[in-house]
Every structure is written in C-alpha cells, then in structure tokens.
C-alpha cells in the first residue's frame, strides 16, 4: 500500500482535492465537485479507501412520508379535528355530526378517542357534546411537517416525533423506507498528502510517441504508477511438460555418448516378439495385453537368413514357431524392436544408442494405466560390456536426473539375461519406487542376427518419472490437456 502522492492516479487526486475542505460528501456530491463521472468517483473512492487516505462511512436513515389516509387528513383534518370543528359549529350530538358529513361512520371511534385524549370535547347528559379549547395536537404538528414532503425521522423535533409515533399507529397514515447513505471524508493520512498533491506540476500518464518525437519529454514529469498492484494474468505458449522431461533425458543421453534413433510404432510380431526370443504362446503376446491391427498382416520384414535363424532358436528353445504369428501387425509394446533392427542392420563393434518413443499396451485406462505411453531406452555395446558396466551406466544416468539412491534387484525379461530392475528412492514419497528395467541381450537374440558383442540395454516408462516430478497421482492428467494444468505447471522443478 502506497501513500506516496506521486503514485496517485489522477482520479484519486481529484477526489482528495474535492475533500480538502474537510466536509463529508456523498459520491454524487464528490463527482459534482471533482468533475469526475459517478463511476470514476466510485472507483477512485475504492482505491483511496484501500490506501487509507479517505474514510467511508455508511449510514442508513428512515425517511417517513404520508400514506393515502395521512394525505387525506393533511387536507381535511384528522377525524378528531373534524369532530371538534363540527361541534363548535353547533352540531351537539353525534347524530348531527354524522348528518353534517363531517365524519364517516367508521371514523367515529377514532374521532371520539382522539378528541377525548386531547381534551377537546366533553360529553353531557343525553349524549350532548360540548367543545373545549382545541390547540394543535402533536399528531397535527407531524402531519403538517410531512405534508411538505418526506422527512428524515431523525431530523424531526421531539414533538413531531411524538406525533409521528401516534400517527404510525393509525393504519394507512404513514409509510417509511430505509435509505442508505455513503459519506466520504478525508483521513489524517489523506490530509497529510494534500500539500504534495497541490504543489505538483502537471504530469503525464503515458510516454507517447508524440512526446518522444517532439522532444516535449524533456519538460515533462510522469506520474508514478502503483507498481505494486497486481497485473492481469497472461499465459505463455509452451512445450508440453512431458517434452521438458524428454528433452532432459535426451540431453543426458547425448552427454553420455548416446545417439538418438527412431522407428515405426507399427511393428511385426517378428521384430516386436520373435526376434526378442519371446515364445509365440507367451501370455504377453495375447490380445489381452497387446494391440494387433484388425485384419492386417504382412510378410515378415526381415531377410530369409534372419527369419531362418530366429525361427530355429524358437524351435530349439520353445518347441515351435509359426510364420503367421510373426506376420501379425502389432502396435509396438516397447521400443526394443526399433533398437534391435538398428543393431541388426549396423552390427556395430562399439556403439551407444537411445530412443524415446511411444509404446502401446491393451490396458483399461485408469489412474495408473494408459493405453499408450513413452518409453525411454538406451543400449550400449562393446566387446567387453558387462553387467557391472550396465549398472554403472544406469547409476550415472539416474545421478544426472538427480536420483542418487539406487539399488538393483534381479528380475526377468524374455530377451535379456542377466536381467535387473532398478529401484530408486523417492524423497517425496519416502519410499523405494521401481523404475527402469535392464539386462544384457540373450545370445538367442543377438546370435541369429549376427550381433557379435554383448548388448547392454535398459529402459522404462517416462510417465512414472513425470508423475513423481509433477506430483501427479493420476497418470491420465499428463494426457488430459487441461489448460488449468498446462498453463500453471512450472517449467523447472526440482
């Protein structure tokens, strides 16, 4: 909150000046006095109130005015007045009074009660009525006052108030309505700032092109802005948060000497499974787990020699092999078929490759399962590659992702031996989480394809890392494309 005079908006200055005499003013009065529109005055009052430079008091008053009966009484007199008037004119019984038309039948009770209370009349024998002195009653006083127009109840005299109280008891005489009133006055702080406002030179709100080119800027001062006030939200364009993680992973791979490869998402059963020594009757190959393209198959996209050698390994190891299974078209369940075809084509002596790509599983989509997710995979091959090297590569990879506590457990994959799974400690969850799987390609995988050196491979889903990084409990959020999330998730997070 700033009470620096130079940071005030012109509207605020105008209001403060209008209040400088110290009187209370309504919004409308302020607008008139300061030359602002009512709306500008209203906004300015809000700002100044927030800054403590003015005080706003809200009071409510009751305005009273005459209703239909009351207006009649103001014109023709209250029933008791008409009664006493008629008596004075000589109509000394109620019958005569009624006959004269001075009172209606239903006014008799009120007229008699009022006249007796005021001691204007007295009754004699045989119902005769005689008139006494009849000075103006408090009710009449109030009536006269309100006949001139509605009045603020608090501003009536004591007698008028007493009369009003009595009139209110008569049905149809008085209506009252609550009226709210805003009164604005300058505070001590506002008064303290006034001299500064009044001594100011004229200021410019904006540095306009005209001020610049004309050179007028040399003689101009600029009004200070409230630089502490909040500004409207804008949303930058940005990459998807998962791409940030993919980029980070790719950078780490390149830094470790790995080169990026990519390949088709649609694969043959041969490369996705057979070449990876996954038996043709393995449960993972069933439709319950793997997506096959309906009604499509294609000749196995491999050389005769590759097909012959891969099928021979299956016959020896698993007791059978059928070309039909190899020809089925599958949405890759991992990126390894791409890696393997690359290795089979290049047969490198020493090499390091990586890929990041989408893979598919026939899952019921839930908070922890997607039909499609990103897999990251790295492979390294040298003539002397060993399990220790694989563990070392994996540990270094994790270290560069900021993951320091890692342990390895044995596990099983059809195409690697030995096979390990890595567990990493997550500080936020305070527990060990399973992350990447890894192993050395089996000879049954490498030999038929003519790959001579041991191949170290590791990989796993990226979404799990993203969930830990972005603190998500539901993996579907990553693909929900909700702008509330995309616009708010930080680019950098530890």
């Amino acid at each position: 909150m700033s009470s620096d005079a130079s940071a005030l908006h012109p509207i605020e200055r105008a209001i403060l000046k209008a209040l400088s005499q110290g009187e209370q003013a309504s919004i409308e009065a302020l607008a008139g006095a300061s030359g602002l529109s009512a709306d500008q005055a209203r906004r300015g009052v809000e700002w100044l109130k927030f800054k403590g430079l003015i005080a706003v008091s809200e009071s409510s008053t009751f305005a009273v005015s005459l209703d239909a009966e009351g207006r009649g009484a103001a014109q023709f007199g209250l029933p008791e007045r008409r009664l006493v008037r008629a008596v004075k004119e000589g109509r000394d019984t109620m019958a005569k009074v009624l006959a004269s038309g001075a009172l209606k039948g239903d006014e008799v009770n009120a007229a008699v009660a009022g006249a007796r209370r005021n001691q204007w009349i007295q009754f004699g024998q045989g119902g005769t009525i005689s008139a006494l002195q009849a000075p103006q009653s408090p009710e009449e006083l109030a009536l006269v006052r309100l006949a001139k127009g509605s009045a603020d109840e608090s501003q009536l005299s004591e007698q008028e108030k007493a009369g009003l109280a009595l009139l209110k008891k008569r049905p149809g005489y008085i209506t009252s309505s609550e009226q709210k009133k805003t009164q604005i006055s300058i505070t001590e702080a506002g008064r303290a700032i006034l001299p500064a406002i009044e001594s100011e030179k004229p200021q410019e709100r904006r540095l306009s092109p005209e001020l610049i080119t004309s050179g007028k800027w040399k003689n101009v001062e600029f009004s200070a802005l409230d630089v502490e006030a909040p500004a409207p939200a804008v949303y930058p364009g940005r990459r998807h948060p998962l791409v940030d993680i993919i980029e980070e992973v790719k950078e780490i791979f390149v830094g470790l000497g790995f080169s990026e490869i990519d390949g088709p998402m649609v694969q043959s059963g041969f490369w996705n499974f057979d070449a990876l020594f996954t038996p043709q009757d393995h449960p993972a190959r069933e439709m319950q787990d793997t997506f096959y393209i309906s009604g499509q198959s294609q000749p196995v996209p491999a050389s005769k020699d590759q097909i012959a050698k891969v099928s021979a390994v299956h016959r020896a190891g698993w007791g059978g092999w059928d070309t039909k299974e190899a020809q089925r078209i599958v949405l890759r369940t991992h990126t390894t078929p791409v890696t393997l075809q690359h290795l089979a084509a290049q047969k490198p002596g020493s090499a390091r490759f990586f890929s990041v790509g989408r893979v598919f599983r026939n899952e019921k989509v839930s908070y922890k399962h997607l039909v499609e997710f990103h897999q990251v995979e790295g492979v390294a091959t040298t003539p002397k590659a060993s399990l220790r090297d694989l563990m070392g590569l994996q540990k270094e990879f994790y270290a560069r992702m900021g993951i320091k506590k890692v342990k390895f457990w044995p596990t099983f994959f059809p195409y690697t031996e030995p096979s390990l799974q890595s567990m990493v400690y997550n500080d936020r969850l305070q527990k060990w989480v399973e992350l990447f799987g890894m192993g050395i390609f089996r000879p049954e995988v490498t030999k038929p394809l003519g790959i001579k050196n041991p191949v170290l491979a590791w990989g796993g889903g990226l979404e799990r890392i993203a969930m830990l990084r972005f603190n998500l409990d539901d993996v579907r959020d990553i693909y929900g494309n909700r702008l509330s999330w995309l616009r708010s998730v930080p680019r950098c997070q530890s």
Partner: protein
Amino acid sequence: MPVVNVSLDRLKKMVPGVKIDRALEMLPFVGLDIEGTDGNIVRVEYNPNRPDFSSDYGIARALSGLLGKKTGAPKFKASGKSGISVRVDKKVKGVRPFVAALVARNGRLDDESIKQIIAMQEDLHNGPGRRRKKASIGIHNLDAIKGPIKYTLVSGGHSFVPLGEKGEMTVKQVLEETQTGREYGHLLGNKYPAIIDGKGTTLSLPPIINGEATKVDAKCRNLFVEVTATDRKAADDVLAVLAMTLADAGFEIRSVSIVDGKKRDTPDMKPVKMSVDAGYVNEILGLELSPAQIVGCLKKCRLDAKAAKDSVTCTIPRYRTDIFSPVDLAEEVAIGYGLYNIEPTFPSSPVAGQRSEMSARFDAARDTMAGLGMIEAFNFSLSSRQVQYELAGRAPEGEILAVDGSKSAEHDILRDALVPSLLQSLARNVHEEYPQRLFEIGKVFRKTDRIEESWHIAAAIAHGEADYTEIKSALQALASAFGMQVTTKASQDQLFIKGRCAAVMKGDRQVGTIGEITPLAIDSFKLRVPVAAFEVDLQALLL
C-alpha cells in the same frame, strides 16, 4: 505377475533359524517382489519363468540358499515305483496327446498346505500351462483309485460326478453348466479326453475339471498326480515342479509307468548337466571370480556345481526349467554372489552422442509454435471413430485401422488426423480462459498397400475472433522459421467451412490443410467460439 501368499510362521519353519526381517530384506534379491503385507501374510510376486516359486515351498527353498542355510541342489529321493500305470489310448493323439503322473505317499497336508498346493496348481495352469491349453493338472486321493488307469476319449454323453457337484453330469452338461466348463470348454473340440481308473471311476476331464470321487482333503495321506498336455516337455516340466514341492511337503515320491506304445516312467527328475567357462561368467558380470567362488555362488542358488581348472560344471535340478543356456548360469552366479555386492563401474564413452536430425528439427518447430503463444497438447495415437469422424463431421479417407479387443472403447482406432484430437482437447477446456491456442506434434496412420505412419503438426486457435487469417499467419511463421515457403490453394475439406479452407502447398505438393472449422463440428464438440486450424505433414514440410 503371479502372487504367492507366504505365511511368516510357515516360512520360519521352512527356513531354519531365519529372522523374519532378514528374510523380507533378502526376498527381492532372489527375484521376488514384496507386493504387500497383511498381518502374518506377505504377498510375494514372482516372475513367471520361475514356476518353482508358485508355492511357499519353492520360495523357502531359494531363500534358504541365498541365506546360506541350505545350499546346493535340494535333496530329492525317488522312492521307487508305485506299481501304478497309465495306459494312453491312441485316440488322444490328435487331442491332448501327453500325460505324465506320479504317486506321493505317506504325507500329511494341513489346511494351509492344501491352500498352497491349490494356489500353485492354478499358477501352473496359467503360467507354463498357458491357461490350461498347454498343460493341466489333476491331483487325486490315491486311496480312492483302483489301477490300472487309462487316458482315453469319452463321448459327450459320458457321465460322472464333477468336483464340487452333488450328482452325475454328462460331459456336455459339464461344459455348458459349470464355471470351469464354460471358461475352458473352448480348448476342446468335440473330443473329450478323460482319465479313468480300473473301476471305471472318472478321475478327471482334462483340462476342465476333476471328479468328486478322488477329491483331496486334509485326511489324504497318499496322492495321485497327473499332468496332461499338448507338449510332452510341458507335462514333464510341470510335474517336476509338483514332485519337488510335494517332496518338500514331506511325501515320498514314487514313479508311475506311462504306457504309450513304449513304456516310460514319470516324473522325469533327471538333472541337466551344463558346463560354463569361468571366463565367460566373469566377462558377462564384470567380475573376477575363481571357479571355486562360482561354485559357491551357484550352490547358494540351490544348484550343484563342481569346479575344474577354468570352468564349472553345474548340475541343474529338473524343476529349474528356466536355466537352459550358459548365460542363465551367469545370472545365477550374480544372484548367488549378491547384486548388492557388485560395485557398478561407469564405462566412459567410446563415441560422441548426438540427437537425430529429425527430433532436433521437431524441437525447433515446438519453439516456434510456443513463440506464437501456443500451448502443446499431447493426445493418444489411439483414438475413436466418434472423435475422428462422427463429432468432427468427416468421413474416413481409406480403410480405418482398428485394433482388436481394445479394453478402452475411446481408444480403438489409429488416428489419421490430429485436428479432431485438438478439438476434443478444446472441448475439455470450455470453462478455461480464452483465447486458447493449442498445437500438437504426433503420428498419423493410414493404409495404402501397407500401413504408413507419418509425423504431423497441427494447430487450433479458439476465441471470439479466431479466423482464417490468424491461423494462416501462424502457418506462415512456422514455415518461414525453417526457411520454407508454403502457399494456400482454395480447396474443400469436410472439417472446414466451404470457402474458408485451403490446401497447404509446398511447391506443387500438398502437405496439409488449413481453414476455419465448420460450425457443425464446433457444435458437436460443444464448443462455443470459432476455431481455425491447420494440419501439416511435418516431415514433408521440413525435410
């Protein structure tokens, strides 16, 4: 992965002198994941290549080894012939040709042991048995059986009392009316294999159900176990695991003669001998172990081994069907050595790494789009007919590429365009602040003579004033960021308003489409503002 419920009380008895904390700590290093605990019960997940882990007996066996309580191959003593034979009828040849069997005598099964064996039987059915297709098991009360036993075919009208039923049912009724009949009946054609004893009692109708007459309960002391299979090795593999487990449970295992033309005795428990060079093992693991040390490691994995000068000869019990290549022994050595004892070494890179040219360019495209104020969306390649065609108001251009048996109805076809997915994303954000500008880079798929997949980029802008001009400006900016020029040629497309749609051309080649989305599609997706979009083949544009 399959799960075994391990009772800690039983584990303490089966692994002598073990401390529970230590046992739990070591389980993962045998290759067993602790999925959860429930009081005294630990749920242990095992990998399906180790069917011997399908009961707590097998888990205790491995744990005793790694903890050094019992090492080397577990004792298995065949107690001779049972005198029982199974005659295999030629008629089963084309149906389910193989059977293997054993007799287990003088044992005791308490309720917990029975539970373990039943759960194990189920796991073996699902794993090596391939959901009973390849192999299935029948465990019977031997004392209710009279030899000789035959394995033959029966007719659909053949009747017996199936396990758990009160009265006789015909085979047809079993297939139609029992739960297992309905679940596994498809594995049989119109030929029904059955195992029947000398009195004509039906022991089992493989692979569907056993008979009630030979039901096993806690009073049984003597068991007859049969495995029928479509593959002889599968029958022997499964029976070997059962034999070892029942031996651990305290039974004497006796052989059964299978008469199938020639005679053979089962279970086949003959161990496999395999030699491996110490150098090979050390190369794979990156260690420098002597043959004697390797022997020590293998023994901790419950294998027998002998060291020679530079090699080791290993004797692998028959039930360890997962070991069939020297590399499998290398893994056993690593497990026996203890993975926690292996110090990782970081090999420095022999080569320099690099990004692929394509992915680097895609990133530049992302930067350009983000610079235009667009937010990147990620949608699935697997979409639905509803999003791709019905809501978008467009017809498929060629054959739709669908996947079989998707468990998620909203993900059952490969998308052929990105814009419908972006419209769906916009539809999810109608309550968010406008303007909204989204882009996506993703693969699209179509069938020609083969299945083609290509990388596309699409952008969609949605706000009160969104129009053709704004989206075309964005397209131009994207193209010129790569030094490319594209032109737009008036065209028609069901997704776009007629007269406000163009083909995106690079030279003479169409590389994409651009325009204002039809109010029909906007309305179908329940959007309330105009949308303009483009979609371009990214590789064709950039390369």
